[in-house]
């Protein structure tokens, strides 16, 4: 299991519960929608996952590793396995698009040639190669969010957590971003989308949904199941117009996560249940191949 929350309670102060006795699991390669009104605890889940918070009770596991047992110096390495996408994009305003995407690669010490190739691939994936030298202030909301997604993918994370990724976007841009996230999921990366955006929820109604209310998990549309790709609606399939990535290969860019290890870990789990695979008729040869690989390895 990729993510496991076991009776997790997070309090701020004595009486304010951000999360109360929350338990759920997410399998590798799943796309899960976390929904619920503002203040229901969606962002707290993200912060617990990146070990910004630690729970008062219960335990959070990421790839079978208890996050409570992580040492302070292991936290950055853990965070590189999770790409976080924020509502307000959180791009660095003094860096241009290219530099923003390259930042995580610089953090893990990648050389210039590798960074260049990687950033080019990610820009292709999000369809913004022509915006590489613009600054965040010169981008539209949708473009900024796609750059934020590209940055989240840079180090080859096994999980993307998108926290209200469409909160600042118009409906059209929202759909573009959500389609991109779903495309990334189809390439093998686990994706969690926290949202209360009705358009997004409607678009992803066939996906697994976890509903939070006042810090409690009140509904899980597919509890304790291996991730299964739902049969998609024809409309949804037709609306997939974003450019497909050219090719993918297994390659973790993080020095702490060798490529072979990532491949061994990811591929079997994604391929195991047949129902997990996306509809083949929608997939090009390239994307079929890439379904075995994490999305972060687009080359």
């Amino acid at each position: 299991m990729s993510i496991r929350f076991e009776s997790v309670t997070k309090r701020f102060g004595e009486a304010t519960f951000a999360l109360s006795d929350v338990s759920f699991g997410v399998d590798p390669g799943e796309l899960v929608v976390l929904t619920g009104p503002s203040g229901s605890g969606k962002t707290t889940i993200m912060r617990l996952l990146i070990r910004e918070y630690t729970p008062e009770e219960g335990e959070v596991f990421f790839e079978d590793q208890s996050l409570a047992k992580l040492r302070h110096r292991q936290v950055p390495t853990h965070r590189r396995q999770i790409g976080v996408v924020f509502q307000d994009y959180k791009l660095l305003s003094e860096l241009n698009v290219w530099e923003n995407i390259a930042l995580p690669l610089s953090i893990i010490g990648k050389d210039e040639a590798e960074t260049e190739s990687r950033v080019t691939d990610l820009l292709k994936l999000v369809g913004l190669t022509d915006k590489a030298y613009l600054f965040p202030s010169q981008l539209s909301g949708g473009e900024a969010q796609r750059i934020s997604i590209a940055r989240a993918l840079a180090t080859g994370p096994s999980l993307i957590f998108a926290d209200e990724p469409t909160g600042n976007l118009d409906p059209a841009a929202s759909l573009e971003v959500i389609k991109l996230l779903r495309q990334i999921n189809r390439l093998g990366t686990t994706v969690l989308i926290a949202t209360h955006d009705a358009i997004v929820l409607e678009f992803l109604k066939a996906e697994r949904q976890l509903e939070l209310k006042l810090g409690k998990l009140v509904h899980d549309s597919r509890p304790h199941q291996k991730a299964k790709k739902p049969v998609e609606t024809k409309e949804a399939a037709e609306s997939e117009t974003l450019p497909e990535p050219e090719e993918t290969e297994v390659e973790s860019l993080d020095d702490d996560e060798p490529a072979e290890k990532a491949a061994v870990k990811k591929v079997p789990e994604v391929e195991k249940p047949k129902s997990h695979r996306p509809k083949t008729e929608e997939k090009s040869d390239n994307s079929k191949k890439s379904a075995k690989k994490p999305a972060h390895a687009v080359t």
Partner: protein
Amino acid sequence: MQSLKTALTSLRRSPYQSLLAILVMSILFFVANTFAITLMGAETVLRFFETRPQVIAFFKLSADDAAIQATAQAIQARSAVASVKTISKTQALELYQKDNQDNPLLLELVTADILPASLEVSAKQAADLPAIKLELEKQPEIEEVAFQDDVLKSLLQWTKSLRWAGIFVISILGLVSFLTVVVMVSMKTVTKKNAVSIMQIIGATDWYILSPFVTEGIVYGLTGALIGWVSLYGALMYATPWLQSFLGGIISLPVSGQILLIQLGVSAGAGILLGSLASLVAARRLLRK
């Protein structure tokens, strides 16, 4: 390399803050180097006086050569004594004649019989002179001991005061420089707070975040140390002719290149240490927030 680039960009973007930090550092190192050179000079002057005959013991006119030699050997045997020079009556007369060669009247009246033999004693350290004086006074054949202790006392006092003043001034200036860099870097960290939180989320290590700030502190310290040293070197070159005439042969001028290079190395090291520590203190506070 990346952190140096980031640090230099940061310096360029806030030139006045950077200038202030570098200026304070430069003043610190100029003053510190000046004190160091002055103290070295004072030590040399002190050593010069210490190696001169500092205590002169005059024998009784009745003292014979054997008694004079015995007294000289007894004094020479003491560990605090650097050298003992015996001046016989005849040598005393020669010295007298040399000193008064322009005054024949004085020369006519004086013979070797009325001049006492003497011992000129030098100590290894000026602080031992009073004990040597006491020892000489105990000798039966010695009539009088001349000891210019007031001159040495004030010289010792001056050196000591200079040393303490130096330590005090350098400590205060060091603290001011440290705090200046802390404040400068803290101001910059505040503007980077958002960027730092993003970097933490995407997996940056503490060191990745801290290194540009630490590098910036090192640039302040190193630049300040270099400017301080160059200023002192310039001032020293300018003042060398005057110092040479004032100090005579006591200190050999210009100051040797080796000393100046050692000073440059120590200043650079201290600058790096001070700058990096100060910026580390400031930047670590940002990580704790």
